[in-house]
C-alpha cells in the first residue's frame, strides 16, 4: 500500500506544481469548485505522507504561547534545541486560535486530499477524532519514537486513537469549576450548585465548548459522557436550558471567563485548570474545584496532517517526550504534562510547580476525570442542539 501511495504522491505533486500555470488541473479544479465550499466526506485523494526518513525542515501549527519562550533571547528553547540537535529548521507558526476556525481553514485542502503545508498541528481531542476518522492524518513513524512509552497511562488509549497511531498529546487540562469564595460566600463543589444556587444567579458562566459543558452536566445528571447514549444528551441540554431560562447563566464564554472571574463579574463558572493556576498568581482567593460528580479531561494532540513529513514530525514528538524537555515546556505552559517523568525533572527546576496538583494531578484526581465521547462530540445533531441552546 505504501508503494502505491508513493507513486500517486509523486504524480500528484507534479500535477500540483503545474497547477499554477497549467491547464492540466484546471478542469478537475473547477469541477471541485462547482462543489461549493464544503468538502466533507472522507479524504479520497491520497496525497500520502512523505516516507523519506531523513530529517527535513518542518512547519508546526500550534496555539499561541503554548510552548516555552525565553524573553531575553526571544527564542523558544524547545524548538531551538530540536533544531540544533537534528540540524533542521522549524517554522513554528502560532496560528491555531480556535479548533473550529482552524478546521474551517484546513478542511478545503484536506478534503481534496491535498496537504496544508504543515507537518504537525495541535488540536483538541474531539477535533483530532474528526480528522482521524476522515483519514486526513498520517500515521506516526513509531520506529523514530523511542520515548512514546513515556505517555502517561491515563492518556494511552483514547477511544478515537486506541493505539496512539496518529496522535500524541501535547498538553492536557481539566475542566471543572472555577470560583471566587469571596463572591460565592463559600465553596462551590457541584455543577448542580452552579446551575441552581440562587445566590449565584446571573454570575455564572458556562463554556461554549460543547464537550466540556455538556460533559460536566451529564456527569451531574448521573450519565456517562464517555459513552453518550439514550437520552443522556437531551437531558443535559434540558438541564442547561432550565438554568438559562431562570437567568442563572450570564453568558456562554470561550476563555473570556478568565477576565470576568478576575474582575468579579462572575462568581463561579466552568473553567480550565491551567487558567485558574494563572489567575491564582494574582488573586490567591480563586479556587479550582473538581466537581463531586467528576471533571472532564481534555487533551490537545499533535497530529501529522496529510502530506506532512512523517519521520521528522515523529522525531519532534519524540523529542518533547523526553522528560527533561517535557518539564521545560511544562514549566512555562503550566498545563498538565502528558509525559511520565516530567514531574521528577520539574522538582529540580521548580519545587512549587512540581507539587501543583493542577499541573501534575495524582492518580486519585485523575480517576475522577472523564473524556468526552469523541463520536458524540462530532455528531451534527448534538452540535446543532447545543448551538441552539447558545442562542445561534
Amino acid at each position, binding site marked *: 500500500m505504501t508503494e502505491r501511495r508513493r507513486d500517486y504522491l509523486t504524480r500528484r505533486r507534479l500535477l500540483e506544481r503545474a497547477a499554477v500555470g497549467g491547464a492540466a488541473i484546471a478542469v478537475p479544479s473547477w469541477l471541485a*469548485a*462547482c*462543489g*461549493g*465550499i*464544503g468538502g*466533507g*466526506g472522507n479524504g479520497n485523494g491520497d496525497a500520502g505522507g512523505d516516507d523519506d526518513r531523513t530529517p527535513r525542515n518542518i512547519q508546526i501549527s500550534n496555539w499561541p504561547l503554548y510552548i516555552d519562550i525565553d524573553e531575553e533571547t526571544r527564542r523558544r528553547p524547545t524548538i531551538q534545541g530540536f533544531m540544533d540537535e537534528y540540524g533542521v529548521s522549524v517554522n513554528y507558526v502560532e496560528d491555531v486560535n*480556535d479548533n*473550529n*476556525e482552524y*478546521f*474551517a481553514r484546513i478542511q478545503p485542502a484536506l478534503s481534496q486530499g491535498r496537504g496544508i503545508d504543515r507537518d504537525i498541528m495541535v488540536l483538541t481531542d474531539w477535533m483530532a477524532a474528526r480528522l482521524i476518522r476522515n483519514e486526513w492524518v498520517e500515521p506516526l513513524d513509531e520506529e523514530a519514537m523511542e520515548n512514546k512509552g513515556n505517555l502517561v497511562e491515563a492518556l494511552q488509549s483514547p477511544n478515537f486513537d486506541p493505539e496512539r497511531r496518529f496522535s500524541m498529546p501535547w498538553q492536557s487540562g481539566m475542566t471543572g469549576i472555577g470560583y471566587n469564595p469571596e463572591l460565592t460566600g463559600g465553596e462551590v463543589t457541584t455543577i448542580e450548585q452552579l446551575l441552581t444556587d440562587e445566590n449565584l444567579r*446571573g454570575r455564572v458562566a458556562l463554556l461554549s465548548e460543547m464537550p466540556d459543558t455538556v460533559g460536566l452536566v451529564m456527569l451531574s445528571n448521573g450519565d456517562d459522557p464517555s459513552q453518550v447514549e439514550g437520552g443522556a444528551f437531551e437531558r443535559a441540554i434540558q438541564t442547561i436550558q432550565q438554568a*438559562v431560562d431562570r437567568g442563572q*447563566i*450570564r*453568558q*456562554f464564554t470561550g476563555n*473570556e471567563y478568565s*477576565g*470576568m472571574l478576575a*474582575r*468579579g*463579574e462572575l462568581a463561579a463558572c466552568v473553567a480550565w485548570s491551567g487558567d485558574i493556576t494563572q489567575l491564582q498568581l494574582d488573586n490567591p482567593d480563586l479556587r479550582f474545584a473538581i466537581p463531586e460528580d467528576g471533571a472532564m479531561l481534555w487533551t490537545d494532540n499533535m497530529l501529522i496532517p496529510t502530506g506532512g513529513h512523517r519521520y521528522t514530525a515523529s522525531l519532534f514528538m519524540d523529542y518533547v517526550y523526553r522528560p527533561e524537555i517535557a518539564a521545560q515546556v511544562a514549566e512555562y505552559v503550566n498545563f498538565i504534562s502528558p509525559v511520565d517523568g516530567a514531574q521528577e525533572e520539574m522538582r529540580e527546576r521548580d519545587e512549587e510547580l512540581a507539587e501543583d496538583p493542577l499541573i501534575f494531578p495524582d492518580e486519585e484526581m485523575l480517576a475522577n476525570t472523564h473524556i468526552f465521547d469523541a463520536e458524540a462530540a*462530532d455528531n*451534527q445533531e448534538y*452540535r*446543532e442542539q447545543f*448551538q441552539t*441552546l*447558545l*442562542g*445561534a
Partner: protein
Amino acid sequence: MLHRRSWAVPYLLLLPGFLWLGLFFVVPIYYLAVTSLQTGDFSQGYTFDWAVGNYANAVTTYSEHLFRSVRYAGAATLIAFVIGYPLAYWIAFRGGRWKNLLLLLVIAPFFVTYLIRTIAWQTILTDQGPVVGVLRDAGFLDDTGRLLATSIAVVAGITYNFLPFMVLPLYVSLEQVDKRLVDAAQDLYASRAQAFLRVTLPLSLPGIFAGTLLTFIPAAGDFVNATLLGTPAQFMVGNVIQSRFLVVLDYPQAAALSFVLMSSVLVLIVLFARLLGTEKLMEQAR
C-alpha cells in the same frame, strides 16, 4: 471630465477595480451561491440539488435574529450619527491644520485589535467598577444591575467600533461645504441654526448617506460584539451564520442565511436612498 469625453472613459476607470472584485469577490460569491443550494451534512458530503428550501428555512427559523440585527445595527447607526456628526463638523470647520491628525485619532482605536479594546471597555464597565458603581448609586441600575452582558453593552460595542466609519464620511462631506455659503445665509438674516439647517445640513447629505451605509451595513452582519458583550438573548444573524458555518458545519444553511441577510440589508439601503433622494446622493449635481 465633461461629457464630451469618449464613451470609453468610465469603463476604463472601472476596469481595474472591477477586475479585482470580479475575480476575488464575484467568484467566491458564486461558490457561496452554489453552496446555498446544496443539501447534506459533513459526514455524508454535500450535493447540489437546487435546495431552495434552505432560504425558506433561513427566513422562518431565524427571523428573530434578523430583526434583532437590524434593530441593533439601526440603533448603533443612529447613536453613532448623534455622536459623530458634531465631531465631524468640529474637525471640518474648526480643525484647521490639525484636521489630518484629528482624523488619525479617530481611527486610532483600530491599531489595537478589537479584542484588546473590548477588554479595555470591559475593564471600565465591569460590575465592580466605578461606572457601574455610580449608576447603581444614582438609581439607574438596581443593586445587582450590570452594564456588561446586556443589549446595551452590545449596541454600545457596535456603536463604538463603527463610529469612525460614520465620522470620516461625514467629515468628507462637511469639509467641502463652502463657508462663504454659510456666511451668505447669515448675511441674509438667517440665524446660525437656520444657516446650519438650510445650508450646511443639506450639503452634507451625501456624507450622511455614506456614513450611514458604512456603519449600518457592516454592523448588521456583526457577531463579535454579541459574543463578547451579550448573552444568548442578544445573538444576531452574524452569530447564527458563524455558528452554522464553523461549528455545526451546515454550510448550505449558513450560505443561504448569508444571502438572506445581504438581501434584507440591501433592500433597506435602497429604501433609505429613496427616502433621501438618490439623485442627490449618488450622482453629480449638474
